[in-house]
């Protein structure tokens, strides 16, 4: 009984093959990079019912995401944010998968999922206050059904699995979604999440955004086999889709959500895309990757691709594009205003919410620090 790596198209390979692991065209898609619609038997049924309205909404959210992301970068450059993790290039993955969600589903994002938060209904301040250093997490998780952005790589995959175990116990059809990157797949937590999800048949979807890079490390450092190929070994079916094809992302996500809702347990989606910008605004990607590679990916742009398709289908015209552009500018202005208008909370609030229940010693520490600060005021008064 020899097990070897078998992929639908490649047959058995004797050993992990980095070339294969990073073959960005070994994916399922319904839109070619130039926007041509192609058939895919696995994906097509899931998007047959997408209305022009929905198609336009997808496009709109992707444009909004890109604009919002550009604003994040700009605000950081202007010293208004301490840091920003750009998602340019990943709009189809984020918006497409989020589009497929129901309101009761709950997402567990990483730090880069701006487009997912948008899809969940985040408000302008929600995107920026944490990056500004005002709060660790800006939004109310119950309002947008999204956990605080996770910085500890992979940790959220377990939270999503646990939440899904809870949904299962509640007898609900709510699904948890864990978003993480290609680099994250190396963490023990992500693998343990697959073990637990599989063991309990938990209704969770693992969305692995393979944007080819974990800071400066290409995906081949993390794996010599396509990441989507890992899940089946845990008893979890997976799909590897073109992460720059919004329709493919919607389809894959609907497939996975449907499985979860029907009690068939977890699924894994590898969305093959590209991080067009730096890892964060602190990063200098020219140190580790070629301009050619980036250039090649501009020709696979997810927004241009969907736009070309929608125009060809007559679903979107110049007027529609203008409207979207205006909406994007309006969002950017709101985000900027929320950022610049932010105020820093009073120092004594440092001590709040460490514990949910009363905590004498910490209350004393708070009082002492308040008294200490008040000492300055007295001195100023003198």
């Amino acid at each position, binding site marked *: 009984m020899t097990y070897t790596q078998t992929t639908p198209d490649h047959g058995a390979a004797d050993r992990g093959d980095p070339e294969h692991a990073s073959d960005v065209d070994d994916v399922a898609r319904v839109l070619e990079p130039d926007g041509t619609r192609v058939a895919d038997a696995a994906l097509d049924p899931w998007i047959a019912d997408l209305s022009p309205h929905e198609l336009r909404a997808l496009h709109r959210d992707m444009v909004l995401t890109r604009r919002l992301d550009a604003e994040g970068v700009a605000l950081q450059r202007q010293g208004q944010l301490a840091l920003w993790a750009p998602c340019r290039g990943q709009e189809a993955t984020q918006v497409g998968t989020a589009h497929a969600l129901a309101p009761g589903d*709950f997402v*567990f994002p990483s730090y880069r999922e701006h487009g997912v938060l948008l899809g969940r209904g985040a408000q302008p301040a929600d995107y920026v206050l944490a990056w500004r250093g005002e*709060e*660790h*997490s800006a939004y*109310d*998780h*119950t309002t947008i059904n999204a*956990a*605080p952005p996770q910085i*500890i790589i992979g*940790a959220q*995959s*377990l*939270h*999503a*699995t*646990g*939440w*899904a*175990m*809870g*949904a299962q*116990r*509640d007898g609900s059809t709510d699904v*948890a979604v864990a978003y993480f990157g290609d680099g994250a797949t190396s963490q*023990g*937590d992500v693998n*343990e*999440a697959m*073990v*637990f999800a599989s*063991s309990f048949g938990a209704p969770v979807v693992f969305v692995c955004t393979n944007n080819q890079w974990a800071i400066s490390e290409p995906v081949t450092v993390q794996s010599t086999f396509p990441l989507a190929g890992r899940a089946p070994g845990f008893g979890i079916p997976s799909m590897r889709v073109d992460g720059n094809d919004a329709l493919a992302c919607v389809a894959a996500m609907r497939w996975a959500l449907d499985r979860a809702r029907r009690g068939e347990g977890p699924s894994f989606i590898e969305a093959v895309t590209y991080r067009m910008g730096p890892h964060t605004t602190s990063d200098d990607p020219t140190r580790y990757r070629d301009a050619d590679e980036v250039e090649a990916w501009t020709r696979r742009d997810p927004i241009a691709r969907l736009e070309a398709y929608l125009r060809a289908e007559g679903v979107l015209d110049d007027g529609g594009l203008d409207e979207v552009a205006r909406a994007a500018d309006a969002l950017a202005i709101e985000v900027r205003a929320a950022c610049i208008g932010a105020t820093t909370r009073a120092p004594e609030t440092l001590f*709040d*919410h*460490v*514990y*949910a*229940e009363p*905590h*004498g*010693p*910490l209350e004393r520490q708070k009082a002492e620090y308040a008294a200490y600060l008040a000492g300055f005021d007295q001195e100023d008064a003198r």
Partner: protein
Amino acid sequence: MTSLTLGGAIGAGLARAMQDDDRVLLMGEDIGKLGGVFRVTDGLQRRFGAERVIDTPLAEAGIVGTAVGLALRGYRPVVEIQFDGFVYPAFDQIVCQVAKLHYRSSGRIRMPLVIRIPWAGGVGAAEHHSESPEAYFVHTAGLRVVAASNPQDAYVMLRQAVASDDPVIFFEPKRLYHSKAEVDVDIDLADAPPMHLARVAREGTDATIVTYGAQVRTALDAALAAEDEGLSLEVIDLRSLSPLDMNTVAASVRKTGRVVVTHEAAREAGLGAELVASITEQCFEYLEAPPARVTGHDIPYPPSKLEKHHVPDLDRILHAVDRVLERGTAAPAAATIEGGVR
């Protein structure tokens, strides 16, 4: 009143908590059919079903991490770590998630999670089965840390821990699992002392011994032995390790002026350091002698044949009592009752 072992009292507490609140779930390795390697959860899966008493895959980060998710969904998971030495794979989830999520979410997320840890040595166990990691958790803001030393406290504190909206690390002294006492299982939690308060386990006037967990028993034995020599020792059972009930500790030290702190964990940056530091800060003018620490040595837990030289016993405590009483480094009292060095 029911006669229960400490382990049995925890089991009874779990059963009661599960009965009172559907959202309470148990998770851990071998806690179902087997009832846990210490049988603390014995019978609970049969009673409450496999959906609520969950045998998990063998992965501690996974257990704690999924418990975080369950808490986010509104459940109140009680996690069992099979032995003290196996909590470290879950350290990241505990320190970065369990302890911090309430703060990270500006109070919007609550983490009513209990992490039960069979704890510490003196039971002749193999490597990694006798760890005393409490200082790591005490140093971690956002956690509450408790340790029961008797069945009644174990029963009540377990239920209080489950009822708390904060995450609680619940240390269970292995060495006392089988010690028995009468437990009032019908006690109204409102009547019981709150989890964060220490307890004067024995009153005395000459010196104070501050300790917790299984060392409470050893300290009481020491106090009994000292009585024969005409010494009156006060013994404080901390119960809560974080927060520390320094009011109770300081009141005692102000009375006696002399204090010995004892625990099994290594000395360096252990909980004893915090106690001595806080005592010194709060009782400086009352101290007749420098506080003394009697702790495990600054070594990894040794092979079990040598553990009696590591876990502080009655003689080492009395030796330190002599020191704080400035009775010279007298020869240590002969080991009069069990637990002597030789």
